[in-house]
């Protein structure tokens, strides 16, 4: 009677079971065609690799459950547990319950969902959506009342300032953002804010007024976009435009700006022009690299030589200039210029272990307003005077 009931239950619930010992030999099987003493793993591959967890089952007292195994086009759940017989010997039982036809239908529905999701994942629509998500992650949004007090913030704000949402509410917008520059419109501004690491970050902000159904403005939404990288690029470009890449000195463009400013503001000032002699020959004899090294070497010498408040510039290839601070007296400048003339002869370039490059340069001291009236005038007259000096020195 008991056996019949078990048979009935197993059939009704689509259950098969295998009882096996610690050597994985089959002791008894129900609804599975297995010989006694055969290795259960020859039939039930699923337990290969699980030997150790199975043998320690009695310690953990939790059966091993592996759901939804697909075998021969059917799904079944596997559960493995241990028990003791009346002689307290350990045995193990593997139950396999075949899933109903609805499980297969459910699996097919999941497959359809996954298929559609995969198509969407690879579509342009998904790429666009990710693109906008990426933008939104960096767009800080504040909701302000009409007096500028914060009534709402988005996740990007919380992340950027590393504060709880409550720390923003009812605070004035200016607690977090300092205005840098008002643009042409009242709704567009540049703000500076400190992030969670206390670093300065520039934001371009747009203010969007939100009206109620009667058309009355009830709040403002401020959308802030991090433009620090743009500021940095702009700064780098400005620097590159005004400096020489090889020596790092201010260039001809800066010279023109500086002289224009000085001629407008000062009654007098002086400029010393320095032109390396035979620079082309040095380049040809030792190569362009040696030429570059010579320019860098002279830059170092002049930077060390000049006063910190005087400005050293590289005007072009082999021409440098020192714009003396207007407060300097002429006698002092003339003495400095005299010392300048001997600087090169005392400091040749040690290009490598074999080559020591001796070099000279020609200097020319000019004064405003006697020698030139403006920046272009300075450059034009300096060039002519320099040529004359070089002819006299028999360099040209």
């Amino acid at each position: 009677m008991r056996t019949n009931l078990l048979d009935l239950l197993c059939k009704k619930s689509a259950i098969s079971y295998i009882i096996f010992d610690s050597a994985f030999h089959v002791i008894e099987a129900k609804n599975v065609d297995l010989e006694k003493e055969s290795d259960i793993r020859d039939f039930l591959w699923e337990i290969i690799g699980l030997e150790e967890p199975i043998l320690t089952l009695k310690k953990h007292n939790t059966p091993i459950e592996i759901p939804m195994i697909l075998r021969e086009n059917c799904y079944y759940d596997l559960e493995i547990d241990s028990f003791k017989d009346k002689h307290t010997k350990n045995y193990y039982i593997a139950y396999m319950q075949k899933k109903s036809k609805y499980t297969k239908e459910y699996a097919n529905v999941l497959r359809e969902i996954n298929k559609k999701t995969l198509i969407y994942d690879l579509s342009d629509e998904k790429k666009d959506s990710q693109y906008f998500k990426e933008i939104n992650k960096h767009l800080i949004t504040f909701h302000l009342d009409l007096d500028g007090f914060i009534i709402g913030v988005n996740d990007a704000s919380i992340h950027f300032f590393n504060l709880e949402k409550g720390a923003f509410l009812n605070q004035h917008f200016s607690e977090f953002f300092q205005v840098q520059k008002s643009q042409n419109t009242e709704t567009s501004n540049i703000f500076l804010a400190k992030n969670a690491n206390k670093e300065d970050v520039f934001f371009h902000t747009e203010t969007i007024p939100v009206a109620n159904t009667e058309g009355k403005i009830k709040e403002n939404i401020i959308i802030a976009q991090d433009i620090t990288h743009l500021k940095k690029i702009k700064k780098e470009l400005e620097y590159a435009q005004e400096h020489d890449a090889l020596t790092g000195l201010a260039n001809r463009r800066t010279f023109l700006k500086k002289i224009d400013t000085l001629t407008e503001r000062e009654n007098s000032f002086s400029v010393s022009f320095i032109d390396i002699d035979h620079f082309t020959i040095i380049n040809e004899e030792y190569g362009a690299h040696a030429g570059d090294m010579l320019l860098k070497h002279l830059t170092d010498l002049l930077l060390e030589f000049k006063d910190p408040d005087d400005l050293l510039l590289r005007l072009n290839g082999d021409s440098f200039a020192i714009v003396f601070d207007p407060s300097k007296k002429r006698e002092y400048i003339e003495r400095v210029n005299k010392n300048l003339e001997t600087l090169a002869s005392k400091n040749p370039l040690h290009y490598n272990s074999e080559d020591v490059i001796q070099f000279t340069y020609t200097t020319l001291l000019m004064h405003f307003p006697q020698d030139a009236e403006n920046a272009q005038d300075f450059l034009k007259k300096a060039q002519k005077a320099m040529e004359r000096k070089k002819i006299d020195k028999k360099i040209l």
Partner: protein
Amino acid sequence: MFSYKIVLIGNFGTGKTSLIRRFVENSFSEEYLSTIGVSISKKTIKNATVMIWDIEGHTEFKPIFKQYLLGAKGFIVVADLLRPESIEQIPQHIEFCHNVVQDAPVCIALNKSDMPHELTEDSLQKIKQSSPAIVEVLKTSAKSGDAVEELFLKLNETICEQIS
């Protein structure tokens, strides 16, 4: 002859089933039929029988069932070269595997290499260095068969060395 278990893990739709089918049956189908639950294949490599567990891929709504990983001697984490998020999730998958089987060797399959993709050599190196358990990172194609055998053989070699 000995037997051991390996598991292929990764996001859904990365080609785990296709890689197994290519390795075990040397076949490929363009039709996408996602695995629900788990199906187990058997393949003999030299003197070892490898039980290859093809488990349901990770989706946003359905995590991977931990029990499937129990008793594995090694893992193949599969990502799709056309879906960056599947590559970004490789470290999470490795961590998940190691929560169940500590320090088990892992091979990474960056699948669908037959399609134009944007993964640089630099990114590939970064993936390689992301865990000491990674024994190989390969760009595979279940469609063309590129590097598929190499992938399974490399993991088998590592596991056999560890067992012996």
